[in-house]
């Protein structure tokens, strides 16, 4: 038994159409069908935050949505932020403030903070800690991540 549907969605500014099995969650679809492996999968029950992406402007767990539910949606993944030659301000701040070590949680951290900073251009440390409380890092610790978020927020304000 295979229940499939054709879906069309915008991923990182590009329209994509694909046939998906309806039971496939959005993170697996992004990684396996579209090859966007920047989105990581840790716990697959919404706790670790590694798979966080932006769906229609809001941060969400891509493991807790079916791909078929993203039909018509606008999706942003970590691949939308920048690349190795042109990092986004947030990525650059992560690099400069030792906000990552193994990097597994980083894509989720970046996408949570990307959504958070868009809505909160003037965050304080407490608000940043709250924003990443749903993203678990098990090696670097959070201090560098909080510092990077503060720096990125300031840079974004300057650039705006």
């Amino acid at each position, binding site marked *: 038994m295979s229940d499939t549907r054709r879906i069309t969605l915008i991923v990182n500014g590009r329209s994509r159409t694909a046939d998906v099995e309806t039971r496939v*969650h959005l993170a697996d679809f992004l990684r396996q*069908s579209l090859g966007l492996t920047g989105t990581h999968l840790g716990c697959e029950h919404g706790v670790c935050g590694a798979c966080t992406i932006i769906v229609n402007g809001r941060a*969400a767990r891509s493991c*807790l949505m079916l791909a078929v539910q993203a039909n018509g949606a606008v999706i942003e993944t970590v691949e939308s932020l920048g690349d190795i030659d042109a990092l986004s301000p947030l990525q650059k701040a992560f690099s400069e403030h030792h906000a990552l070590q193994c990097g597994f949680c980083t894509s989720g951290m970046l996408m949570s903070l990307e959504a958070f900073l868009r809505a909160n251009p003037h965050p304080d440390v407490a608000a940043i800690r709250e924003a990443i*409380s*749903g993203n678990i890092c098990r090696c670097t610790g959070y201090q560098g991540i909080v510092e990077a978020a503060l720096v990125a927020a300031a840079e974004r304000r300057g650039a705006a």
Partner: protein
Amino acid sequence: MQRESVKPAPFIYHDPQSRADLHDLLARLENTKLLAGGQSLMPMLNMRIVAPDHVIDLNKMPGMDGIAIGGDHITIGAMTRQANLHDSPDIKEHLPIMIAALDHVGHFQTRSRGTIGGSCCHLDPAAELPALCSLYDAEFDVSGPNGARKVAAQDWFQGYLQSALAEDEVLESIRVPLWPAGATYGFSEYARRRGDFAIAGAAALFAWRFDATIDRAAIVIFGVAPDPVRLRELERDLIGRRLDGEAIHTSAVAAKRIEAMSDPYVSGDYRRRLAGIMVERALTAAAQRAEMAA
């Protein structure tokens, strides 16, 4: 198509877009699961804790979300996202306790999809929103192929993860009666990590007389027993009294007497002890809010 590793067991997906279609599916299909925000059901599907033959997605259903203010009540559509409740000026004005509670419901990345109806149908013992429904004696509006009915909060909770919703019914909306102006609230919960399931929590509402004695009280404890627990006897005893240190202490002692769940991580004794502390904190916050308003 590329071969994919899939986590949920196979099911047929349905996304009805009208009441007639939804009720038809509910009448016709067996072993179904209704998919609202997915923040509880999707983990259970991914881990194959549940393996329904059919998943009925409510996300395309018209008219199931939104907040409507009546004279003495507020009606919240079952598919209203937790994030939208959190950001709503109407909720801030009429149900500020809900915003305090929502701060503890997962994280902003899960509240973006999680719904109040989903929380109230999944009924995790630690869930904050169902506890508020119990606190307010809310009314649950459900519909199904055999018509609509209303379920009182005290009948809604049927034990661990079990609501009064029948297999072929869907929760449409929740009607929350409002308390008089001047009523104050307190909310407190304890979890090991931010956003985790609460080990214990308490919420309280007080309406006041002109002489600052209690006119009406409601106190609920969640996370401790399978269902939210109202302390109705205590609520009656508090009427006419001041919410002073002695009354708060009496309440905390009463809270420690409720039946508590025990699991390999948290003993019933510890849950009961925490229940007392949560009630103490919630009542202290309610008393402070009343003082500030006076």
